[in-house]
């Protein structure tokens, strides 16, 4: 294969694109505005009027081309298979985008009189209803902005409940070693200390070790279920009993809720609160890093502590409660306004489209797809635990032993094959983890092609093609990037005259 260097540096559809700061052309403008007239300096509070400070000027066609070219350097779920474990990269329906843009939902201000936004409150209340029904939980705090924010919200409710009972001394939180990093980080933000608990050889929490850790200073257990190894915690009901017996609460990280929607009501497992990532389980787009939403369902023991605001059914229709209210003991407010409303609209559109039958079929297909990957790959990769798995299949790097190829190299080779890699090196409890979550979005045909590619790469690795893996990817807009340089000499913004 011969590679020719073009004069421009472009490769067909892969077009090199400068920074906007290098494209600006003074005198251009991308938005036509009327002339404002002279500024009333008397109304500026003694603050000086700002001088021009170097933002570039571009016209609309330049701007459209810039962002279109940048988009072409990205891989999305629209592009292809994105088996990023623990992230639930499922199809983002376009109907959700369409209804979220209806002016009657998008062009609303959060402080309009409530009688002018009854339909918006109906969206919030309608979604809350579904989330409560799907989990069997009596209450939900709708406002957290993402999963980690929901974790913190749940822990704040737990801490408030303990303080209220005169048990504010409970400051220790038990967290499995396999947990997402957000769990211990959220606990620390509530003034808690984190005590790790070990797993058994079968990838589940060691119940005896957990019991031994319980004590009068334990506030709660934070457990992901299905866990980050893609396994259902089979002793979860006993775990809940032990936790409650010790006067502590049970926080469930719901990042993996997609495996069990419509097949298990988490209330039946004995949990006290769980956040739900609407941008995972309920299909709202991840957008390259958000926005998400992390509504947090609460048991009766915690419901009174839910933060403001929340929607109630009042005598004049739906009412948004923004402050103190009889009987409620909100622990405070977690963000501005009324939650991630635009995300709620999209999630509710997905839920209404799927219905109870579709949601159950989706979790069934997600689990089926993961088990299919595990079954078809276990003879060439090394599965970390015996099946069946839930919605994701976990492998470790034993199959690469002595090949000179690492998990990272394997992932980069997948990129050249046209796939987004699986999650690498997480969870931390297995060596060189490769965590694959196919979701229900993928067809059997897509999975079969992926399986063939992974099998081919595994065979190549074992046949001694390490050099080829080390130099992957070769077909991407950029090849492996120097992360050490980026961290040692941080360049976090463009500056005039500083560029190559």
């Amino acid at each position, binding site marked *: 294969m011969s590679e020719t260097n073009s004069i421009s540096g472009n490769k067909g559809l892969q077009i090199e694109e400068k920074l906007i700061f290098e494209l600006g052309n003074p005198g251009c403008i991308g938005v036509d505005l009327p002339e404002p007239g002279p500024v009333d300096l008397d109304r500026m509070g003694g*603050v000086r009027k700002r001088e021009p400070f170097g933002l570039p000027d571009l016209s609309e066609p330049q701007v459209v081309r810039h962002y279109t070219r940048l988009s072409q350097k990205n891989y999305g779920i629209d592009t292809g298979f994105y088996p990023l474990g623990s992230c639930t990269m499922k199809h983002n329906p376009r109907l959700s985008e369409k209804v979220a843009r209806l002016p009657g939902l998008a062009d609303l201000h959060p402080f309009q009189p409530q009688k002018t936004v009854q339909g918006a409150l109906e969206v919030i209340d309608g979604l809350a209803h579904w989330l409560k029904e799907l989990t069997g939980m009596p209450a939900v705090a709708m406002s957290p902005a993402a999963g980690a924010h929901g974790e913190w919200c749940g822990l704040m409710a737990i801490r408030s409940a303990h303080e209220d009972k005169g048990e504010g001394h409970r400051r220790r939180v038990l967290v499995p070693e396999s947990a997402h990093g*957000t769990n211990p980080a959220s606990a620390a933000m509530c003034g808690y200390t984190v005590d790790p608990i070990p797993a058994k050889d079968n990838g589940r929490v060691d119940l005896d070790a957990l019991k031994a850790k319980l004590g009068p200073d334990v506030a709660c257990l934070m457990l992901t279920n299905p866990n980050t190894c893609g396994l259902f915690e089979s002793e979860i009901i006993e775990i809940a009993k032990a936790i409650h017996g010790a006067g502590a609460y049970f926080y469930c990280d719901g990042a993996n809720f997609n495996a069990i929607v419509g097949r298990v009501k988490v209330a039946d497992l004995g949990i006290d609160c769980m956040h739900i990532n609407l941008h995972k389980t309920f299909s709202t787009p991840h957008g390259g890093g958000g926005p998400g939403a992390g509504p947090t369902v609460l048991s009766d023991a915690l419901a009174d502590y839910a933060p403001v605001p929340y929607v109630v059914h009042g005598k004049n229709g739906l009412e948004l409660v923004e402050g103190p209210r009889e009987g409620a003991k909100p622990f405070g407010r977690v963000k501005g306004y009324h939650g991630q409303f635009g995300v709620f609209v999209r999630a509710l559109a997905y839920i209404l489209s799927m219905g*109870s039958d579709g949601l159950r079929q989706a979790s069934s297909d997600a689990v*089926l797809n993961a*088990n299919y990957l595990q079954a078809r790959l276990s003879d060439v990769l090394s599965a970390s635990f015996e099946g069946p798995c839930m919605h994701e299949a976990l492998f470790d790097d034993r199959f690469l032993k002595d090949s000179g190829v690492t998990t990272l190299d394997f992932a980069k080779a997948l990129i050249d094959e046209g796939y987004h890699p699986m999650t690498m090196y997480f969870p931390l409890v297995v060596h060189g983890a490769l965590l694959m979550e196919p979701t229900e979005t993928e067809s059997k045909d897509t999975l079969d092609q992926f399986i063939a590619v992974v099998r081919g790469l595994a065979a190549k690795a074992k046949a001694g093609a390490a050099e080829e893996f080390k130099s992957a990817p070769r077909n991407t807009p950029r090849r492996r990037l120097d992360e050490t340089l980026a961290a040692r000499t941080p360049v976090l913004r463009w500056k005039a005259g500083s560029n190559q």
Partner: protein
Amino acid sequence: MRYLPLTDSDRRAMLADIGAKDVDALFKDVPAAARLTEALPLPRHQGELEVERAFTRMAGKNLSAGCAPFFIGAGVYRHHIPAALDQLLMRGEFLTAYTPYQPEVSQGTLQVLFEFQTQVAMITGMDVANASMYDGATACAEAAVMACRVTKRNKVLLSGSLHPHYAETTETSLRYTEMEAELLPPDPLGFEDLLGRVDSQTACVIVQNPGFFGGVRDLRSLAAICHEAGALLVVLVAEPTSLGLFESPGAMGADIVVCEGQSLGMGMNFGGPGLGLFATRDKFVRQMPGRLAGQTVDVDGKRGWVLTLSTREQHIRREKATSNICTNSGLCALAFSIHLTLLGGTGFAKLAELNHAKAVQLEQKLSKVKGLRVLPQSYYNEFAVHLGDEVKAAEVVDALADKGILAGVAASRFYPTWPELAPVLILAATETNTEDDMDRLVAALKEVV
């Protein structure tokens, strides 16, 4: 079902390969008592037509801002969004990508974030900005925590100029920590004394500019007092288009600047999602929360971008991380960045001047309403007005809504226990307001006040 590609024959073939009798067998680890044997008794799946109809019905129950003379601000602002923006935002490669963990296939998102960080640093007048927080309120809380970490002090002073939601969110965030927040009373006239309250225990002062009631102030002397006492000055900007008109917080001496980015590129969406902007000085960069995109080179020596300095973050540092934040507001950052790029330096300044001019025009027109007085001496595109001692602003807002006018927000919505604020109404004007809107507002106010 249109989102599910597997057919029953696919499922049977796959189960055979797995060696499982049926799908239920894959759920054998679920305790039997907790297994649901059939779909929950809730509505079944629906086609696009039915779902769209349901949302059209709910949307129809709302009075959308475009259908009314509209003067609400208070932290969420209605601006015109260029048509190109939404088309670009809908590109699937942006919309449906995850966080850019694999930089070779995420250079689009990463370059956007690098440009966004640069734009935020430039408009705030700071050295460096992160890749976004959830919203202005949570960014404000994170700034308080960071200031405590930097100064190794625990006292956070919150100005009465602060948006009440931001103050509440910050107080909530510090509630179960060693840190303490002291919140000053609401300050519609801009008379509060912050200078006299800064001492050797103060980690930071957080002040909003323009303030919640609209007032704009020169922050130089406050910055000097803070720095003399070893405290940080945190400046919050709820309306970032104001940065096109006023000298930047950075130039006035701020150490951390946090903003709500909603007013560029995002529409109102009933208040969410928002976009937290977070900027600071170079020397504090390793104490920052949130993600950072940084420049580097690839193995061929070509310029490219990666996520960097992640040893601050939860996935590496766990309970010792600077924040628990993971998913943030990536797509909102893209929207903000596209809008600012379309405006450019020229358009950004012009938009700000236009907003200010609209507010000046509104003040002039309101002078014809008997008994009404504008409270702040200075403002950008928003100000509080006093409607007269006997008038309740909440009732005025309600009465005007019945006339199809969305006439600002009553201060009592946030401060129900402050009777002196009952007559106070907060009004905003942007480039979207026409002279006819203003005349209708003034005529309606004359009738009810």
